[in-house]
Each structure stands twice: as C-alpha cells, then as structure tokens.
C-alpha cells in the first residue's frame, strides 16, 4: 500500500467508526459494542501508522498529495490532502498509540456509565482521533486549522461529557470559548497569509514583516490551545471531563497540537525572530507559573493539569528558542508519560472514587502496578536521567542555553526543580504515608486498565532513546552532550525529589505554599477573564440589545406611530360640518385658479 493510502486509512478508520456509531443508533445505545468499534478503528489507524514508520525505516520518501477543496475562479483556493513526512508520521504513531491505550483504559474506567453514555463516549473518542489525525497529516495550514477546530469540538463535548453537572458544562463552554478566542488569531493568521501569498502553505516566504504578523497570530492560537499564560485557565477546569479524556486530550495530544503547529510551521516561524522571542518568554513564564500552581492543588488531576501547562511552556520556550526539534521531542515523550500519569491517576481515582489527594495515601500496597506506573511517569516528568523526559527536557534546556538572555533558561531550570518537587509531593501524598479511609477498599482494575498503563510505561521509560531516530526524521541535529545543562537539569530533578521527600515525607508543607494557595484561590487571571466576559461582552451585548429594541426598533415604531398620529390628528379636520366642506370646496377652487393664474 502506498503511503498516501496508509495515511488515509489512519485518518479515516476512526471517522468510519464514528460515522458507523452515529448512524447505527442501536449499536451506540448498546454501549459495549460501541467501544469495540472505536477500538477497531484505532487499531487500524495505529497499524497503518506503524506500517508507515516501518516503511520510513525502509527508506520511504516524504509524500504529499492534495486535492482542491474550496475553489475560486475555477482554481483551488484551498486544498485538502495528506503530507507524510518526518514530522507527521512519528506524531501519527504517538497519537494513535496513546489514543488506543486511553480508549482501552476507558473500557474499564467507564464501565459504570449507562450504555447510551458509554456509546456516546466512544463515538466522541473515534471522532477525536479522526480530528487529531487530520491535524497531523495536514499538508497546509488551512486543513490543520480545520482539524484544530474539530479537536476543539471533541474536547468541548468530552469535557462536557457529564453534562448534568453544571461545573462540567461550564468547564466545557469555557474551554471552547477560550480556545475559540485564541483561534481567531489562527484565522487572522491564515487570512494574512492568504492575502499575501495566495495560499496556506507553511513553506511560503512572505517576508519578515508579514511572517511576523502571521506567526504572531498563529502563536495566539497556540497560546489558547496549548494553555499558555494568560489563556491557560481553561485547562485546569477541563479536568471536569472523564480522566481518560484528560489523559488523551488535555495532556498527551490535543493540547500539544499547538506545539505541533509551530513545529509544522517552523519555516514560517524561522522568518519571524520577534515572534520567537515572545514565545520564548511566554513559554518560560508559563512553565514557572503553572509549576508553582501545581504545587498547591489538592486535586490530583489539577496537579497534572498545571503540570501539563508547565510542560507545554517548556515546549513553547524551546520553539521560541528556535529549536523546533526540541519542542517536538518533548511533545512526544510528554505525550507518553503524561498520558501514563493521567491514566494512573485515573486508576487511583477509579479505586478511591475521589480526585482529592487528601482521600488518598498509602495506595502503594493496594495498587502496586498503578504506583509503579505513576512513579515511572513522575520520574520521567521530573527529568530524572535515563527516563524519557530527561532526554527531551535536556534538549529543551539545552536549546535555551547560550541565548542572549539567560533568564528563560534559569526559569526553566527553576521550574525543573519545581516539577520534581510537586511530583514528589503527589507521589508521596497518594502512594506513601498512612492509608486513608477511602483507600482501604481500593484494588487494581482489570487488564483493560493495567494493560494500557504498562503499554505507556514502556515508552515513558525508553522513548528518550528514540531521539536520534526522530532527529533524522525531521533532519535536525541531535546528540547527547555532557555540558552544563544536563548536569544542572539532572541536579534540579534530583534536588526536587529530595526536597519533596524531605518536606512531604514528614507530612510537612512546602515554604511559600500559603502565598501560592492564596494566589491560586484568588485566581486573578480567571477573574480578569470572567470580568471581561461579564462587563465587556455581556455588558456591551445588553447595551446592543437595548439599543436595538428601544432605539432602532423604537424609531421604526415611532415612524408607524407618527403616521398613525398624523392620521388621527388629520381626521379632526373632517369636522362633519357641511359648511366646512363647502369651505374646502371654495378654497380648492381658489387654489386651483390661483395655480392657473400665477403659473
């Protein structure tokens, strides 16, 4: 099979599953069969993408095929297609693999749901995988945008999966609004690119000024989708969704789409150093800021959510530093270990029926496998040497080393410490220490739960060693070097873990936690956005509504009123007195005669 066919299979197999489930209502409503259909779709997609990788290992070239999508004056204005190269193929595997794991995990995790909801859940999953693959294989920015929005949609629907819960409904809408707000940047970027180049290619060379505009606008979308400061506020709320969803969408794949976009559009970003500078700073600030907030969360998923923000900050910073490969690499490893962490967290939540860290504790004995998986994920996230996260984080930090300003580098270093520190906190609070009340009845889930954990733990351990291959795929230079950065980073990770054991092992509190908690509780960014929404948007809209009803429409009513009043006043002239009528006749004759005479 040709590469294009494989790419299409990888993309459309999940769509076929989704359509099948959508159309065959009984199938969907039965629940369990829906899961199998979705899984089958994902397996096919994964198989196709693995075949693609194998072909590439065998030296298959990059392929790109497009067909006209939207036309204008008889020629294509926009195209749809498939581009399979060193960026998309590895990404495809990552996405399909993580998705399959998560879906499998979900079969067990969600089995308590009513069949209809279960069916809906898997339909949405299939739809998500399709949308994500559309992003991954897209040959141009427009198709990428289409997929980008579709994953946003599935994210919205999956966050709001428990739509009966007002908080979940609110979170879903908020996520959609925030990302949509940012996506306006994407759309504007596309428009600017289109106007100046006549297309939507990331290979275009529109000149620095235009490229800066385009990339800045695109980056706005990245800030939204990848939950960078100050648009990150939706991500913690998004944890209202089922935990596997958080694992897949809000940690491993969808939020990474922003990073993927920048990696894809690297040729464009390369023409816009100013944008990169901004990215660097925003990424670094988010990394630190979110890591700080992760430290004080009581909800295990929120810790992971802020951690995701923080890690995305790393990637964005790397991209800002001009090292797309570093960001991409980190994206890949992060996908595995963060999905692993979430699924492990899901396993814990499934066992104790609570998200709160306070309800956990001492789970190490009850859930050995989960503990092992979580610890692997945490170590990888912390960047402990040997784990996948170490390699990629090292690359990111290395990318920043030697930049004009050392501040971002230092910030990321600091946040590496924080990462290890807060992950240590979670591990200790959840798995060590005294057994909590709720933990008493905890037990491991079935194979469907543990299987994916194992499947994800392996790459979390070893994916770092694939860096070299990945680098050849994207034609980047990659070599491990022993310098300041790896040593410092490793030191930071170990220091963080050590500090965590020191502090939390004794049940203590970290310094500055009080301040951070206050900061978290006050949630300034959140409140600013809420204020902007209430006062800005709702205020203006009520004003517009009032103006329309009472001024514009009022004017229309006034016109009618004036005509009617005119008629009503005029009718008084119809006095009913014959003499007046005769008078008018006389006047009429006089006027006519005058007209004639004076003519």
């Amino acid at each position, binding site marked *: 099979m040709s590469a294009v066919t494989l790419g299409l299979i990888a993309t459309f197999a999940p769509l076929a599953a989704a359509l099948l489930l959508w159309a065959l209502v009984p199938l969907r409503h039965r629940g369990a069969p829906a899961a199998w259909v979705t899984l089958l779709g994902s397996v096919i997609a994964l198989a196709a993408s693995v075949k693609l990788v194998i072909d590439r290992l065998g030296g298959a070239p990059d392929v790109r095929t497009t067909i*006209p999508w*939207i036309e*204008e*004056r008889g020629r294509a204005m926009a195209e749809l297609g498939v581009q399979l190269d060193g960026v998309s193929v590895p990404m495809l595997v990552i996405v399909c693999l993580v998705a399959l794991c998560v879906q499998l995990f979900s079969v067990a995790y969600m089995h308590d749901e009513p069949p209809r909801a279960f069916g809906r859940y898997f339909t949405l999953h299939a739809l998500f995988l399709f949308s994500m693959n559309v992003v991954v294989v897209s040959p141009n920015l427009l198709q990428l945008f289409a997929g980008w929005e579709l994953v946003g949609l599935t994210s919205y629907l999956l966050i709001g999966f428990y739509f009966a819960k007002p908080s979940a409904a609110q979170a879903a809408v908020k996520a959609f*609004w925030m990302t949509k707000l940012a996506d*306006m940047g994407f759309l504007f970027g596309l428009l600017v690119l289109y*106007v100046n180049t006549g297309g939507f290619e990331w290979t275009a060379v529109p000149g620095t000024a235009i490229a800066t505009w385009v990339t800045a606008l695109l980056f706005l979308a990245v800030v939204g989708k990848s939950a960078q400061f100050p648009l990150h506020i939706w991500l913690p709320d998004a944890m209202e969704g089922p935990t596997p969803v958080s694992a897949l969408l809000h940690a491993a794949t969808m939020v990474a789409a922003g990073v993927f976009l920048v990696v894809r559009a690297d040729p464009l970003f390369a023409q816009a150093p100013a944008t990169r500078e901004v990215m660097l700073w925003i990424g670094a600030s988010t990394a630190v800021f979110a890591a700080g907030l992760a430290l004080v969360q009581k909800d295990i998923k929120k810790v992971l959510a802020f951690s995701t923000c923080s890690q995305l900050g790393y990637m964005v910073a790397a991209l800002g530093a001009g090292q797309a490969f570093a960001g991409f690499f980190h994206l890949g490893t992060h996908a595995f270990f963060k999905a692993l962490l979430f699924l492990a967290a899901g396993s814990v939540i499934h066992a104790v029926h609570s998200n709160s860290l306070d309800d956990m504790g001492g789970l190490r004995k009850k859930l050995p496998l989960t503990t092992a998986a979580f610890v692997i994920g945490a170590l990888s996230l912390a960047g402990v040497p040997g784990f996948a996260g170490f390699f990629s984080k090292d690359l990111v930090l290395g990318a920043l080393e030697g930049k004009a300003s050392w501040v971002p580098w230092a910030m990321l270093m600091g946040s590496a410490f924080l990462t290890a520190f807060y992950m240590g906190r979670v591990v200790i609070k959840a798995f060590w220490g005294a057994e909590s009340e709720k933990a008493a009845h905890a037990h491991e889930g079935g194979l469907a739960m543990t299987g994916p954990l194992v499947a994800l733990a392996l790459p979390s351990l070893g994916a770092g060693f694939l860096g070299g291959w990945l680098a050849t795929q994207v034609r980047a230079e990659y070599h491990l070097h022993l310098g300041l950065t790896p040593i410092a980073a490793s030191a930071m990770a170990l220091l963080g873990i050590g500090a965590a054991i020191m502090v939390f092992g004794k049940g203590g509190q970290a310094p500055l936690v009080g301040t951070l908690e206050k900061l978290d509780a006050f949630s300034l960014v959140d409140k600013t956005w809420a204020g902007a929404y209430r006062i800005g948007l709702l205020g203006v*809209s009520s004003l517009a509504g009032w103006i329309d*009803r009472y001024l514009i429409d009022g004017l229309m009513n006034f016109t009618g009123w004036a005509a009617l009043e005119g008629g009503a006043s005029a009718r008084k002239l119809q006095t009913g007195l014959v003499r007046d009528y005769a008078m008018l006749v006389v006047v009429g004759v006089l006027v006519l005669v005058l007209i004639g005479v004076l003519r």
Partner: protein
Amino acid sequence: MNHLLATIVAAPAIAGAVLLVVPSTQRLAIRVVSLLGALVSLGASIQIALQYDRATGGLQLLETVPLVPSLGIHLKLAVDGWGVALLLLTGVIIVTGVLASWSVERRDKEFFLLLLVLVAGVFGVFVSQDLFVFFLFYEIAVLPMYLLIGIWGSSHEVPASGPFKFAWRRFAVGSKEYAAMKLTLMLLVGSAAILVAMFLLWGNSGARTFDLQVLEATKFPIGVQHVVFPLVWLGFGTLAGVFPFHTWSPDGHASAPTAVSMLHAGVLMKLGAFGVLRIGMVLVPDAAAWWAPIVGGVAVVNVLYGALCAASQKDLKYIVAYSSVSHMGVVMLGIATLNAAGWNGAVYQMVAHGIMTGLFFALVGLVYERAHTRAIAKMGGFAHVMPVVAGFFTLACLSSLGLPGTAGFIAEFMVFAGAAKGANAWWAVPGVLGAFVTAVYVLRACKAIFWGPAPAGEYSHLEDVRRTEWAAPLVLGSLLVVFGFWPRLLLDFIDVASQGYLGRLPLVALAQVVTP
C-alpha cells in the same frame, strides 16, 4: 428542451390549487398533497443540478413565454449557477418544512396552501430572468407571510421603555399581529424602492425591456446607476436584514410558526441578498463598485451588532433570529467584497445559513411545542429527555459559529478571505469577531437549554423527536456536515456563476489575488 424550471415553480402552486378542492377534514390528504408538491420541486431541483453543465456555466434550461410584450415583460425562466444552489436549498427547506408542520392543528388547509404559494414564489425568484417576473415572484413570496405569522404565530410581551416609549401604546409590540404587520410593511417599503429602481432600469435600458440579459448588456448612465443601486440595496436589503432595517426580523421570526420561520429565515432572507447580488451588483456594476464600501461597512455592523444583540436575548427564538441578522451580514459582506472568493462565500453562506437556520428553527419549534416556553431561563437539562434534539441543536450551533467541518465554516471563511483581499481588508476583523461572539451566545444557549441536571416537574416528560419530525434534523443536519466537508458539491455551480458575473465589475482587476 424540457420544462424542469416551469415544473419546479408550478409544482407547489398546483399542489396549492389541489388543496383548494381537498375538504379540510381530510387532514392527511392535505399533508400528503403538500408534501408531494414539495417533493416534486425538490426532485426537479436535484434534476436541474444534475443537468446543469458546470463547465459552461451561464444561463441554462431557458424557457420563454411572452407575458406583456408591450411592456417588455416575458416569463423567461433560466437558471445560473447561483440559482442551482439556491433552488436546492429551497427544495430541501420546503420539504423539511412541510414535514415539520405535520402537527399544525388549526386551519391546517389554509396553512399549507399559503406555505405552498410562498414557496412557489421563492422558486420563481431564483429562476426568473426577467426583472419584472422576478419582482412578481418576490412579492408572492413575501406576502403570505402576513397571514402565516398573523394566524399561526405566537405572541409575547415586550415592555415599553426607552425614548420612544409613547409609541408602544399604539401597538401591541410583541404580538403576532404586530410582528406580521411590521414585517409586511417594512418589506413592502423595500418593494416600493425596488419597484422604483425597476422603472429606472426599464426606462433607461433603451430597449424598454425587463429582460435581465438585455439589462446586463446595457451600460446604464452612471447617474441612473447611483440612484438604482441604493434603492436595490435597501429594497432587497430590508429582506436580507440590512442594518437598520432588520428590526422586522427578530419580531417576525420569533412570532412565526416553525415552518414559516424555517422558510423565512432559511430561504426568504436569501431572496433579499440574492436580489442585491443579482440585480444590484450585476446590473449596475459601476455604482455597485462605488457603493461597495458602504454596503460592506453596514454589513460589518450587521455581523457584529447582530451577534451582540443575539447575545443579550433571553428568548430562544430571538437568539436565532438575531443570529440570522448577523449571518446575513456575512452574506452582505461577501457581496460587498466584489471578488470571487467573497461572492462564492456569500452564496455559499446563503445556502449554509439557510440550512443551519432551518435546522435551528425546526428544533426550536420542537422544543417550544413541547415545553410551551421559549424563555431560556426556564429550560435546562433537556438533553436528558430529548437527546436527539440536543445533538442536532449542537450541530446547528457549531455551523453557526463557523466550525470547520460544517457548511458555515466554508462560507464564512471564503467571505472573510474575500474581504481580506478586497479593498477594505479590515472588514475581516469584525467579521471574525462576530463569529466569536456567535460562539459565545450559541454555546451559552446550548448549555442553558440542554445541559445541567435532568429537568424536573412539567419538563421531565418531554418527548424526543418522533415520526415526521425526524426529517428536518436528519436531512438538514446531514447536509450541514456534507457541505462542510465537501463544498464542491455546491461550489462548482456557484463559482462558475460568480466568474461570469464578476467580469462585469470594473474593480475586478484591483481585487485580483496576488499569486506567488
């Protein structure tokens, strides 16, 4: 030569005539006859689409019957690419509309009769190639609305306030009679303007004819053009909801019964935009080019202002109605761009918005029929009892906010692209902002109505979609997605027409894409 175009116009009219002799007690027969009429039209429009040669473009399937030769009036029917797309839209909407009105209880015979008359008018407009006949059909399409809203509509109260409070006493603002009267009067003021413009064109054509092709070939004096264009713009524009002459729309759509809202927002408003495009832009291109910045500026107001107004509404139908105002702004914006992308987008948006708003109103009608309220505040958690409605409503919302994969995206994207590369690139900014505001209000409404805890009390036993009610969501919903993924199904037709007409515009050279 076949008579497809005559068939498409005549089928609903004949069905209406048949209805006259069907006794009003035969309720099923009434519905079946109406449905047949609608189906024949739909079938004919599909057949037209199949027969239309997309490679050649231009006017096809021509039929001519002299009507009043002394005045140069001919019943000249033919269809261009735009017409094909809009005929398909109309066919789909009327079929689903008839099915959605299956449950009309009161005076159903008259209802279906008027509905069919109206739709015959709509079809007539899209296939007329004679300005006068165009206008006749236009009027036929507009007028039945008065009775349809006035008899079968619903009323509510609008409190008096603001500087024109005193005027409220004169009218029962918010009542169906008020809505019907306002709609009819405002639209007929528009018609009056069109009539005057028509005379001007006819009088200055030299040939004293209403034949659109002859008029197209005529180079009107610039002075005449400058009078004609604003008349056409505001005349037809009133029906297209051009600010500030859109105020009939919220009240009208809110008061109208389901199928009427579907047809009116779905198809009739398009007549207005189509008129601006087909008559205004094509017949008087020089003035159109001069006026385009103003048309576009007002359209931009429409988009953003309509969306903001929608965001402030508490009544479900008003939200949808204002969203129509906003989306029709997108159409007008596309028209004002004077380039192929914009025009394609405008026509595509007509179809997309037609389907989307038809779906919206069908679902809102379902909800209203069951819950007997349109106040969003009273609703909540309806997805528990009517999941299908919820699903399709969400789909309509998504198309409304221009989500890729739905027809709304293709349309809006093309319009914005057209605007961006036109003379006034900044138009795209409020356009896109409007789409964002749309996202805010549709999703908020969606959340408020369908999400949340399962409804208790009187709303706990609301039924989901059943029997004929499936038609509208299923057909319209699927089309939204199909046209979202594969726009060329329509775009092939639209583009060939836009290409042909664009050649007449003096500004085309300026608006060319800079190709790398």
